[in-house]
């Protein structure tokens, strides 16, 4: 079943807004795309429109947090990154309680092309002290992780895609900072985030048909990384594969590589991108072009294991 990340986000935000009067939402004129318009309709007095100015929005959220609010900032991931320095110098440096929740990350804004597709944000956020970085796998995960992100005292970056969220969970019991083990395996460990969790599950099924036993982990919290679960599972296999809709530099692949190389040197394949995206009428055509399909991952694993 395919659901929508942003729909799940918009609805969950209203639910949280009902429970928590301190929740405020800021928008830079993309409310109908991010679905924060639902929050505006429910709580107009707690919805703040700043116009097309992401830098002002992020710093203003800092002020709201200083005054005791829990601001949720939403925008397209690519354009929230133009406020990276504001996120660094005002939000992260002062450890302010701001929730940065972009949509349209990865290739999910397929039609809009390379300017709108965001393949660098995890790396940019992961490098910041105090920042928690979360990438939900599907629409079911969004409300569960969003609630915990709002309850956490400190800055959180929660990366969402646009609409394509193949269902991974029915009623997920997820814990921020704790990897979710979906499948055990003896030969290879697939560590994935976001939409690529569903691709990892498909990859594992295909590998099984070929006699290769693959484990799958949903690493929804990329920072702080659940090193314990990673090392525990990695110790049992020959090969670790990371899968992400992001650059292989500095994202999930980078995070896993850092931990393994220091603590448990292990053969690693990082699946992700190394270039800018392109426009496509079809989201799947992009995943295929950049090698982010189960077939493509299977071929890469077979080269190493056989």
């Amino acid at each position, binding site marked *: 079943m395919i659901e929508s990340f942003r729909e799940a986000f918009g609805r969950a935000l209203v639910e949280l807004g009902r429970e928590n009067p301190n929740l*405020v939402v800021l928008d830079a004129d993309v409310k109908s795309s991010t679905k924060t318009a639902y929050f505006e309709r429910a709580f107009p*007095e*707690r919805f*703040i429109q*700043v*116009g097309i*100015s992401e*830098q*002002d*929005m*992020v*710093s*203003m*959220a*800092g*002020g*709201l*947090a*200083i*005054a*005791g*609010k829990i*601001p949720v900032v939403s925008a397209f991931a690519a354009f929230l990154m133009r406020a990276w*320095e*504001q996120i660094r*110098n*005002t939000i992260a*440096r*002062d450890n302010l309680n701001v929730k940065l929740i972009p949509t349209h990350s990865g290739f999910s804004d397929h039609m809009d092309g390379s300017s709108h597709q965001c393949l660098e944000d995890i790396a940019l956020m992961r490098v910041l002290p105090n920042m928690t970085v979360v990438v939900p796998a599907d629409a079911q995960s969004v409300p569960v992780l969003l609630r915990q992100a709002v309850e956490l005292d400190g800055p959180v970056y929660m990366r969402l895609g646009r609409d394509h969220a193949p269902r991974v969970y029915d009623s997920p019991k997820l814990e921020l900072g704790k990897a979710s083990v979906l499948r055990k395996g003896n030969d290879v460990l697939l560590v994935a985030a976001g939409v690529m969790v569903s691709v990892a599950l498909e990859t594992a099924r295909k590998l099984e048909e070929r006699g290769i036993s693959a484990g799958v982990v949903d690493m929804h919290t990329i920072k702080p990384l659940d090193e314990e679960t990673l090392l525990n599972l990695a110790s049992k296999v020959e090969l670790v594969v990371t899968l992400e809709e992001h650059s292989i530099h500095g994202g999930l692949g980078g995070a896993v590589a850092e931990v393994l190389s220091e603590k448990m040197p292990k053969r690693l394949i990082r699946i992700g991108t190394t270039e800018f995206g392109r426009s496509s009428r079809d989201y799947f055509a992009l995943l295929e072009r950049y090698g982010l399909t189960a077939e493509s991952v299977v071929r890469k694993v077979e080269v190493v294991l056989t």
Partner: protein
Amino acid sequence: MSEALDPRTKLQSMLQPVNNFHLESSETCLEILSAVLEEKGEKDVVILSKGHSAPAFYVMLHEMGLLSDEELYSFADIDGLPSHVIRGLPFIEVSSGSLGQGLSVANGIAMAKRIDGEDGYVYVILGDGELDEGQVWEAAMTASHHRLDRVVAIVDRNYFQLTGGTEEILSKEPLADKWRAFGWEVIEVPNRKEELKKALETAKKLVGRPKIIIARWGV
């Protein structure tokens, strides 16, 4: 006048060992900080957006008995006072040092106060060079659009920025007209404490719009 001279001497002696770190832009900020801290009420908030004027702020804290001599002279030493203000110092709600972000933060605090039905003004001190940052004008639009009349900005109009005169580097004039065009109430005063205090009083009485005090140096 001796009241003004004394902090200036203090500033000079504290900055001498550190290559006169932002001495001039700290000097022009002394009377502004002094006026704002004297006017500040219990529920008011001060944001020093031009964070490099931290030395002037420390001199004010010293004058108020909140810093010892030893602390003052620890400026920019490894465990001493930070070179740009950080959250946790008295009166400092947000770390600065990166220009152009303070007005947005002030708007956020003012907006939260409005949502909560709380009183209090948010004073934000800006440098004139800082006005080159586009974010300042984004925030200027946000403040006037949302009628954040609890925001009172003060521009240290000293006519210089890091590598030269403001009108050579990137002209600011006609500065008052720019702010008016962005929907702000503008008050222009000489950069002197008593006149600044009067301007702050006037600003508080103007309702419905954010207010900016342009504090002109050397007039």
